[in-house]
């Protein structure tokens, strides 16, 4: 009889323990569910930053991890969308200034001519200035379209195995009159041997043209060097000048779109050349950077992989 009593008491105790355990477990789950409910409400309202925190041995673990994953992914997409929207807005504002300024002054010149404020030789000069401004504006708008196409990844690329040495020599041949016109000495160091690399020829021409244009317009130097080096699986194109260099203040921003240093704002630049060059280099999975050389002047380096 006593034995039976002990057994019964023992079973009862175990049952109680199990019930107690289950109740606490249930309570924990209920607590978790109310947190999940709360968080989901918040997420539904658009707060994709909300996360649900769980412990290693919670029953709701996998559900919570999945909810968090969904929130993180949506958040990332939302942010990307917002960023491109902002970039577009910035483009529109800078566009309005950068087009408006030359256009306004162009109107000023034309009005002066039309209202006959100027005559004879002065009039001819006004017409020439106005024409220059119109050309500059046209170039700017063209660069801008290129940029927008690049930015929207709409540009079509034709990667071809090409001899970069020969291609560069061809590009430079067209530049020689411009070098001479602007009183620049040039020194070219390109090997006669073939150096095959995968690239889109038009894009490569743009990169080199933009860097040379930049050196002529802004360096205030008298000499341009172009050198091509092969290093293992990479090709390095180096364009340097002996000009005034780039101030440390401007250096971090020179590849930013529409960034212009105080000095270059007054010249014929448009703040797009280097940005376009950078974008093109990136599309070839290469890198581009600039530094001031110790002997004065700036060195631009483009590193391109031979095979993409």
């Amino acid at each position, binding site marked *: 009889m006593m034995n039976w009593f002990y057994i019964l008491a023992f079973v009862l105790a175990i049952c109680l323990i199990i019930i107690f355990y289950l109740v606490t477990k249930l309570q924990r789950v209920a607590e978790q569910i109310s947190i999940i409910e*709360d968080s989901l409400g918040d997420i539904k*309202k658009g*707060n*994709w*930053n*909300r*996360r*649900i*925190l*769980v*412990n*290693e041995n*919670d029953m709701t673990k996998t559900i*919570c*991890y999945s909810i*968090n*994953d969904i929130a*993180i992914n949506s*958040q*990332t997409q*939302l*942010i990307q969308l917002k*960023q491109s929207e902002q970039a577009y807005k910035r483009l529109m504002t800078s566009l309005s*200034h*950068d087009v*408006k*300024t030359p*256009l*306004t*002054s162009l*109107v*000023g*010149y034309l*009005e*002066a001519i039309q209202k006959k404020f100027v005559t004879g030789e002065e009039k001819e000069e006004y017409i020439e200035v106005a024409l220059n401004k119109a050309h500059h504006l046209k170039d700017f708008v063209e660069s801008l379209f290129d940029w927008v196409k690049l930015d929207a990844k709409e540009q079509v690329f034709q990667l071809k195995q090409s001899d970069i040495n020969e291609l560069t020599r061809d590009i430079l041949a067209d530049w020689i009159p411009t070098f001479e016109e602007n009183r620049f000495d040039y020194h070219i160091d390109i090997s006669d041997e073939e150096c095959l690399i995968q690239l889109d020829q038009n894009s490569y021409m743009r990169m080199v043209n933009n860097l040379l244009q930049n050196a002529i317009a802004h360096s205030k130097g008298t000499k341009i060097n172009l050198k091509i080096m092969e290093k293992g699986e990479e090709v390095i194109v180096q364009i340097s000048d002996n000009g005034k260099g780039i101030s440390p203040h401007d250096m971090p921003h020179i590849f930013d779109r529409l960034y212009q240093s*105080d000095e270059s*704002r*007054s*010249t014929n630049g448009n703040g797009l050349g280097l940005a376009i060059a950078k974008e093109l280099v990136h599309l070839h999975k290469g890198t581009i950077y600039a530094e001031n050389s110790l002997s004065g002047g700036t060195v631009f380096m483009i590193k391109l992989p031979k095979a993409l």
Partner: protein
Amino acid sequence: MTNYIIETKQLTKLFGNQKAVNNVNLHVKKGRIYGLLGRNGAGKTTIMKMILGLTSITSGEVDVFGKNIKGREKQVYPRIGAIIETPGFYPNLTGTENLEIFAKLRGTPAPNAVKNALEVVGLPYKDKKLFSEYSLGMKQRLGIANAILHDPELLILDEPTNGLDPIGIAEVRDFIKNLSVERGKTVLISSHILSEISLLADDIGIIDHGVLLEESSMEELRRKNGNYILLHVSDVSKATLILERQFGLKDYSVHDDHMLRIYDTSLDMASVNKALMLDEVSVISSQLCNDTLEDYFRKITGGDGIA
């Protein structure tokens, strides 16, 4: 629903008779970095501690995520990550072990939270190095890793770059910026270094002797503080013609039909005005904007300056 992640209303803290924080109304907007700028002892840390419930509030209110924090601490604090002063870690454990303890205590949003947090701040995962052997910079990084371990919506960072070398400062700045730009976090950060804050913050609050003197967006401040002459004229095309022909000016930009910015501030404005008048362009106003941010803060804090 308000857009403020943190809003304080007449927040005040008394230490004895001294008002450490005096009627502060702070507004931290969602997804932005709010820089609290002030000298040492201005009350920055006390404000942060009151928001986090680490010190009692003498009077006033703190709203976090749009609701008063009182009585909701348990729901609210898991959604905040913070570093206030030096974080307490166990010296005889490694960085990873320390974070695993905090992960157990607070719970995590993903299975590999510790690894992710260490990756963000650039510390090695499962490294053998004990916390006591860490350099000051590594300790600070581990503190930040601990603050972002549970992927919180709001970060409250009290001088997180204290004691770091210049490269470390730049790195920390970059990943705080990234957290905000790429992951949409809201950040409240304090500093006594103006240049630091101006590189990082979207909004700024200037605090001096416990009083919030000014709250403004950096964009607004930058607009106010440039180095140019703002010229408001009746006919902007004609004005540009005169400036180009008579003054040889090329460095300017046109902002709307009547507004010009001239970046060459050495220009003799008296003769410009005269030339414009002679050609029947009326000058409505011309204004020289050449305040630097430093000048501006000096003005606000009444001559003492901050950095």
